[in-house]
């Protein structure tokens, strides 16, 4: 398993860009001819009414869906479609709308799976465990414990995630994504279903990840307050089309955006 590769991108330069991406399922057009970019080090929000194609867009970036048209450029490399491995190896991690944790495992194990990419010891060493495999396990355990400290989930390390309350599950999922040491973190509605305090906590974590680890973040979010406070730039989708792209203030006052949210036919 190779460690992430790719040329270094300077802060402020374009880390990932999608160009003229179109995605359809049978007759349903999820995304039509959308282009935008994400700069390194920024927090980019993707917003829009329900069904706008936001999650589909993330899935395309991840390599889970393959667009019929368009290109994705990540760290200077352009391709017609991402493959999940390339995305993961390249340093893209994500969380999911409906928490996609491994329910049969503990929180600690879930986050440890995020280290899979970087664990190299082969099958024979794993069989023996004592020796190089155990040393590697301990080394990665150190890193995972740092993340656990960061997210303040020490008490629930050994709890099977299926038993955790929703807010904690989302934190564990964030931890698993962070364990991949991603350059680009895709967050799909990280605040969904949370109360005010939980949202404040999660916002603090997102800002800290961006500050402390320098991770570029793209997030889908419905809470406008969160979007305005957290993000550097915003792109707005509606019915699969991009209708606005700019700073939070620009977008907030854009007439097409207001119409889309209020449901004015256009």
């Amino acid at each position: 398993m190779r460690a992430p590769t790719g040329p270094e991108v300077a802060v402020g330069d374009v880390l990932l860009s999608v160009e003229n991406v179109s995605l359809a399922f049978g007759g349903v057009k999820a995304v039509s001819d959308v282009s935008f970019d994400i700069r390194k080090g920024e927090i980019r929000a993707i917003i829009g009414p329900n069904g706008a194609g936001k999650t589909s867009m993330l899935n395309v970036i991840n390599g889970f869906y393959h667009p019929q048209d368009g290109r994705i450029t990540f760290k200077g490399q352009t391709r017609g479609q991402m493959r999940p491995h390339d995305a993961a190896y390249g340093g893209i991690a994500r969380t999911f709308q409906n928490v996609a944790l491994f329910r049969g495992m503990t929180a600690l194990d879930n986050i440890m799976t995020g280290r899979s990419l970087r664990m190299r010891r082969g099958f024979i060493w794993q069989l023996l465990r004592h020796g190089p495999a155990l040393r590697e396990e301990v080394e990665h355990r150190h890193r995972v414990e740092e993340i656990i400290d960061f997210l303040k989930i020490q008490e629930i390390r050994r709890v099977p995630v299926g038993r955790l309350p929703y807010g904690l599950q989302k934190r564990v999922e964030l931890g698993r994504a962070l364990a991949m040491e991603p350059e680009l973190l895709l967050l799909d509605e990280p605040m969904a279903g949370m109360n005010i305090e939980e949202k404040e906590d999660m916002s603090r974590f997102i800002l800290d990840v961006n500050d402390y680890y320098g991770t570029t973040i793209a997030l889908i979010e419905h809470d406008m307050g969160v979007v305005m406070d957290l993000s550097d730039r915003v792109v707005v989708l509606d019915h699969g089309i991009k209708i606005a792209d700019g700073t939070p203030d620009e977008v907030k006052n854009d007439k097409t955006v207001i119409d889309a949210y209020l449901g004015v036919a256009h």
Partner: protein
Amino acid sequence: MFYREAGQFKTTYAADAALFPILQDKLGIALILVAAFILVPLVASDFVIDSVLTPILVFSLAAIGLNLLTGYTGLLSLGTAGFMGVGAFACYKLATLFPGINILVMIVCAGFFAAAAGIVFGLPSLRIKGFYLAVATLASQFFLSWCFIRIPWLYNYNVSASIEVPTRTLYGLPITGPTATPITRYLIVLAIVSVMTWLASNLIRGRIGRTWMAVRDMDIAAELIGIKLYPTKLLAFAVSSFYCGVAGAMLVFLWLGNAESESFGINQSFIILFMVIIGGLGSLLGSFLGAALIWGLPIVLRSAAATFNLPLNAATVEQMTFMILGALIIFFLIVEPSGLARLWQIGKQKLRVWPFPY
């Protein structure tokens, strides 16, 4: 609980990740091993060793094999007995073709043959998932069963299509064939099973076990983390079949002394699947418990019949076993889908807080 578990703090991650982190558990397992290796041969009768303990150990290993594939990786397989058969027949051919080489080496090599078969029949697992994969494993089961009858070379052209185990020795002591004593065979099986169980537990606790469980729980998410699905699944098939192959070879060489093709038919696959379901999917302990329960059931029935003087012939015992087995499976699935292993855990938990209810 019998001993206090709290208060034992680990100061290194390595200690925390050990197989038996608690001192008393370590002592406990050491005691069990001592009892198994030393006490049992001294105390137990040949009948108990040969008809109860050895087969339970052999089937536990096969159950571990299936558990690795189905319980940990989530790939339902109905072809377990087929892979056991590959191991058994491979061992037989190797033993008869190379009589001078140590039979233990042959048993391990037979495992590799089974692993190869596992990889071949696991190839569809990329495109095919879940229930459909189970039907594909039926293809492998029926095909292998057919091979065991229709390829006479496998059983050295024996007229009755069965194999008789030749005598092989270890340091001059016969361990297979008619002259090997039950105790000798039991100890060899115990040694092999202990080592292989330990190896399996190492795999499970490390990176590979986690990737298997990730594939089981949500393969899409696993892929997006960077886990390669296909190699992971094929590895599961390979390792699982290796275990089943060794179990099959041991079944023939170290327990029964002979075999027919029916020994590795679809019914055997189901029995092992039941052991895994009842014992607990995703639990090594469960494999042993399930094997013990299912193997022990007819024996218990027969003894009960003898004790209460009920006239039960062999066929009736078998029928009642089927019925009780079927009912047990349904019962476990309703009450505790995680099987006996989970019941064991719940029991331990209750003991921990006893006499308080929670």
